[in-house]
């Protein structure tokens, strides 16, 4: 046994072993459930338990029938509700990502430029909200955004507005919620890439005649792009499928795909359509990742090009 262990350590087998564990994890908890969902998306709706029909059926002795039901996908195509909710999810997620970027970039830059001991503290503060329950933090926003909430009371006290703004239960509230909840996911990769940039590059740019804004645009921004892309993906992808934030803050006005999915599953109990929606959403999410990968590859290829 000990010899075998030694052999594993000596050979490449050790590194394979390290690879097998995460891949097994993904296979078990992502690929298999996804295949189940995919299977359900191709089956019929049935009243019963489970609420869908089988894909494979023995009709008579020796004949196996595979039934692929595309009507679920076709149905999603016919009802514009689904298309709209897809688009709305995407728009909200994109706006949320832009919001995170606008707020997160200066913050990340500030942290990266801060003195080292102070930097750790600032990073801690960015992660601090994670110590409270996500749900509680979203609920807290109801208290802030509602008509008699903190924000409206404060604005009316100062005299900026005379009647309360209705922000809660709108798409704006959803976007605010997304920006708030996902901000750390934007800041951390941005910080990681900004922190690596050698400040003398900025000085070199000044020295060569670039004003601060030009120096930023031509040096810091392009060098921080990997961080911008990574942060945007980390915000955009989960934000598209977000359920809790639009449910709590968006009211009935916001139709995000996560909410529609929830309704299909639990209100309509139409598992096949819900599964088809989930499959389409996955495709929708995989596309930006694939684009991101391509961009990164191209950049690497530029740098290696002779």
């Amino acid at each position, binding site marked *: 046994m000990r010899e075998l262990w030694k052999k594993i350590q000596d050979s490449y087998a050790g590194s394979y072993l390290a690879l097998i564990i995460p891949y097994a994890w993904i296979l078990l908890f992502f690929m298999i459930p996804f295949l189940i969902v995919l299977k359900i998306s191709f089956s019929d709706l049935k009243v019963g338990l489970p609420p869908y029909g089988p894909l494979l059926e023995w009709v008579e002795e020796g004949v196996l029938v595979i039934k692929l039901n595309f009507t679920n996908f076709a149905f999603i195509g016919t009802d514009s509700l689904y298309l709209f909710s897809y688009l709305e999810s995407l728009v909200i997620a994109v706006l949320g990502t832009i919001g995170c970027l606008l707020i997160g970039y200066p913050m990340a830059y500030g942290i990266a430029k801060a003195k080292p001991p102070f930097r750790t503290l600032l990073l801690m503060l960015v992660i601090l909200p994670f110590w409270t329950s996500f749900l509680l933090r979203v609920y807290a926003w109801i208290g802030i955004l509602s008509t008699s909430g903190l924000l409206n009371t404060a604005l009316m006290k100062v005299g900026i507005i005379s009647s309360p703004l209705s922000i809660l239960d709108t798409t704006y509230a959803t976007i605010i919620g997304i920006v708030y909840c996902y901000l750390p996911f934007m800041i951390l990769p941005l910080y990681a890439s900004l922190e690596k940039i*050698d400040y*003398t*590059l900025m*000085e*070199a*740019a*000044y*020295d*060569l*005649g*670039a*004003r601060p804004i*030009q*120096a930023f645009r*031509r*040096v810091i921004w*392009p*060098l921080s792009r990997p961080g911008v892309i990574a942060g945007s993906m980390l915000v955009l992808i989960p934000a598209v499928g977000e359920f809790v934030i639009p449910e709590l803050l968006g009211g009935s006005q916001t139709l995000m795909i996560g909410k529609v999915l929830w309704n299909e599953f639990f209100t309509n109990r139409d598992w096949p359509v819900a599964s088809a929606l989930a499959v389409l959403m996955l495709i929708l999410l995989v596309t930006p990742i694939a684009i991101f990968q391509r961009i990164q590859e191209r950049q690497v290829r*530029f*740098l*290696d*090009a*002779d």
Partner: protein
Amino acid sequence: MVKKPKKRIDLQPWQDPKAKPYIHIEGVSKDFDGHVAVDSVTLSVFQGEFFSLLGPSGCGKTTLLRMLAGLEMPSQGKIYIDGVDVTRRPAYDRPVNMMFQSYALFPHMNVEKNVAFGLKQERISRSEINERVKDALRLVQMETYGKRAPHQLSGGQKQRVALARSLVKRPKLLLLDEPLAALDKRLREQTQFELVTIQEKVGVTFIMVTHDQEEAMTMSTRLGVMDHGRMRQIGTPNEIYEYPNSDYVADFIGSINKFEGRVAEDETDHILVESEEAGCELYVSHSADVPIGSQVKVAIRPEKVMISTSPPEQKRNSTRGIVKDIGYLGDVSIYHVELASGKIVLATQPNLVRLAERPVTWDDEVYLYWRAENSIVLMT
């Protein structure tokens, strides 16, 4: 070793009292939270000069350079370039370019784009930019590397690109922060020569920061030795080496023997110092203007100390000791001779004959002597 062309020796504007300095630094100081990095430095550099700021790390030479670049603002004093006060001008608004020690090439741009960076800030046509980039790369012999990314270049190539990038804007003043520090010894010596050639070709005034005295000596028209934020001495390499004005400068450039002693005579043409440490009277053929009886140091460079096995005719500037150690460097040998006072004196002798035939060896008693005009008196 860089051989300076004759033209350079003739060009000595600092000798001419009417010559107008091109770069003028006047009483410049820099304070970093109470720590004085540069302490009221005044310096004039003339057009076309290759001036070196020499000193140990932390002596303020880099801070002075950064103030010239505009990357640091002086706490006090004024900086003039070509007669214009640029003290408060930001870096992007000065006719000055800098070559950074780390080269600071933009990693996301290829060589051409790096060089073109500074030109794109100005309103210059694309064709002219291309032309000037090509010229600059040709100047540093990197014209075939235009499409390479910085990480694909060797240290020496990066150094050339950085030089091209800082020269392409035709600055009035080029600042070089330890330009050769990242190169290995052989490449460094070769690059020293090239830098001087390029500087002469473009005619731009260079100010270089270095901690390497050999580099400063071989490359510069003049150099300034700095210590603790102060300028200790400014002069040609020859002046600094032969006539250091202080103990500090004498020690910093090359090695030197120093004897403590008491002034016995101080005339207009000579000074006589009695030194127990040296074991003889020290006769120096220049006056020092110090009171009789005061303590001074007399210094003599090792290569100016002669060794012989028989007593020399002169009585002054002549002592004897035992050879304790011989450092063989190939072309020269350094003899460590211990005097009766215990003082170790270094004497460098060229190896005119092969090692085995050498007349002087370990534990031999030898006589050391030197000429009066070769030693100097150090006051501080």
